[in-house]
């Protein structure tokens, strides 16, 4: 019986292709939306993590208390040792130092004297260590509007509006003038490797990026770091994992009375991320629910239509002596099979699209006026276990309900009438 139905579905394409296609597309769309909204949320987490918080962050207590000021005079000294300990205790986490600093960028004329200068805020990131994930995290490649990313010591990236207002071009030599973590004067020349767009007017006006090693020389922060960012394996954030690492690290330091002892925070503790994410999560679940309702209506419709389409077939089958109940049951089984096939194919396709998106992303920056920038103009998707079954619920159930409703006609109409539709 079952194999008979399967044969029917496979052989009679005309009869089954459309319902299967409808279920497939519908399920695919639900799975895709789920992945997409997860991806948007991940995007938000990723941007925050990559630029502001890391998944985990280590600072001195004094620095943490005044973090908004980015007080480098309170930076973590002996960061190498702290990093080593972090690597030892939490080897799966990618620990990387960051320094935020400020100063003046001075543009020389042909005689090497000040032609122009303006205030800048800098971010120093590990760009040159072998295997560093940092250039990718900051999306530097994408944000470059001219020149190239930092490939060797002594190079600097300058923000677009600064570059435009002071006539800075890739290849130019500029001088940074600021103060070290101890407050001493500090100077360094850099080659402008490239011009970047951050996508934020403040940073676009006066943002610079340096390699961490250069910044340490510049700020007299050898073996020091303002902040150490930690990224969980695969750059994927997990709240519980981050929380447990944070707790274990801070417990180790609990008895340390030093104001400059390291302290760890995690992403959720910072910038109100916990509230934001909780909220976004419930919003996207609501969206998904709405979509599933819509899909259910569509599939119900498809089930009804699939039934109506075959009234004359029913007539023939009844005429040939099939019992109504048997006919109804075979119809339901058939729709179940269609639902399963459609859900399977749809889920697979949906997952494939999400996979593709999670790998490559959908770049919508081409439709935006500012082509390159650091605010990620790419839509990614996330793949979660939920996605393996979420589409199947409406995919199978709604189809079944629709067919069951349409099939009731078998009972309502008499055999003769159904047969008559055969003409």
């Amino acid at each position, binding site marked *: 019986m079952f194999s008979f139905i399967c044969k029917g579905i496979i052989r009679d394409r005309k009869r089954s292709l459309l319902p299967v296609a409808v279920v497939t597309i519908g399920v695919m769309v639900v799975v895709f939306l789920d992945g997409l909204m997860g991806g948007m949320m991940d995007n938000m987490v990723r941007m925050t993590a990559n630029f502001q918080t890391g998944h985990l962050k280590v600072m001195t207590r*004094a620095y943490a208390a005044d973090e908004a000021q980015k007080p480098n*005079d*309170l930076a973590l000294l002996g960061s190498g040792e702290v990093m080593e300990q972090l690597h030892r205790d939490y080897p799966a986490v990618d620990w990387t130092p960051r320094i935020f600093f400020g100063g*003046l960028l*001075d543009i*020389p004329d042909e005689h*090497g*004297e*000040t032609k122009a*200068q303006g205030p800048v805020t800098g971010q120093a990131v590990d760009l040159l260590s072998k295997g560093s994930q940092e250039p990718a995290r900051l999306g530097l490649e994408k944000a470059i509007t001219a020149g190239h990313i930092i490939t060797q010591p002594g190079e600097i990236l300058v923000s677009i509006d600064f570059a435009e207002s002071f006539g800075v071009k890739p290849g130019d030599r500029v*001088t940074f*003038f600021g*103060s*070290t973590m*101890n*407050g*001493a*004067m500090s*100077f*360094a*020349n850099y080659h402008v490797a490239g011009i970047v767009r951050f996508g934020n007017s403040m940073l676009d006006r006066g943002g610079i990026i340096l390699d961490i090693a250069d910044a340490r020389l510049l700020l*007299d922060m050898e073996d020091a770091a303002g902040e150490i960012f930690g990224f969980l394996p695969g750059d994927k954030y997990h709240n519980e994992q981050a929380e447990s690492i944070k707790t274990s690290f801070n417990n180790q330091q609990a008895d340390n009375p030093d104001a*400059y002892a390291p302290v760890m925070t995690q992403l959720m503790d910072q910038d109100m991320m916990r509230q934001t994410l909780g909220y976004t999560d419930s919003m996207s679940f609501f969206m998904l629910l709405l979509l599933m309702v819509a899909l259910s209506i569509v599939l119900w419709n498809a089930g009804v239509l699939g039934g109506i389409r075959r009234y004359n077939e029913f007539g023939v089958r009844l005429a040939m002596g099939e019992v109504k109940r048997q006919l109804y049951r075979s119809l339901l089984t058939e729709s179940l099979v269609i639902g399963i096939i459609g859900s399977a194919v749809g889920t697979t396709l949906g997952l494939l699209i999400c996979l593709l998106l999670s790998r490559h992303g959908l770049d919508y920056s081409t439709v935006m006026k500012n082509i390159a920038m650091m605010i990620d103009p790419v839509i990614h998707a996330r793949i979660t276990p939920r996605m393996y079954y979420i589409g199947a619920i409406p995919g199978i159930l709604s189809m079944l309900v629709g067919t069951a409703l349409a099939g009731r006609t078998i009972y309502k109409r008499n055999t003769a009438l159904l047969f008559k539709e055969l003409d």
Partner: protein
Amino acid sequence: MGLVLGGLLLPLTAQDGNQILRKIDRNMSADSRIIESTMIVHGKRNDRTITSKSHTMGTGKAFTEYLSPARERGTKMLKLEKEMWVYSPATDRTIMISGHMLRQSVMGSDLSYEDMMDDRRYEDIYDARVTGSEQVDGRTCHLLSLTAKVDDAAYPSQKMWVDSERLIPLRAELYAKSGQMLKQITAGDVKQVEGRWFPMHMTYKDVLKEGKGTEWIINTISFNQSIPANVFSKASLRK
């Protein structure tokens, strides 16, 4: 007796105060000065020691070269009237310090570039009045009240304890227009150099801020030596 007392209690006039100021200026200022000094900046976590050598001519020209630590060694600063340049050997660049930067702290200290650069004579800026006499570090001092007579004095009034014998300030309090005290300077280790008394150790403290302030110690000082004019040129920064 009463006559003597009366004579002692006569209000000391502004003229007396200004005379004292003039004498202080005679001690402290010169047509030119060459100073090798050590600055100790007491930071939140550590102290830093910076040594430098500076040449000053009159009130408008100053040239400073940093000698240590290694990081600052060779950094030079030139001030000509209201303009200032800094040269760093590491970058071989001469950078103009715009006026607004002059108000920033020097090397993380409690002194701004401006504090360091303003070498105008007291008597050019302030009117002084003697308001009493007090002991400071075991020495008898005139207590002077200084009021700015120009409108661009960073500190419109000061209270100054001046060694009544050696005629150098041992302590000063710098006030804002409103009368709020902003900075406190104490001087010590007074030595005789080239026939004049000079405090070889000074402490600057921003009283609004927590911290131990900044110490300034003079290692060597000489007055009125002829300094070649080309020292005070941008060309000498690169030398």
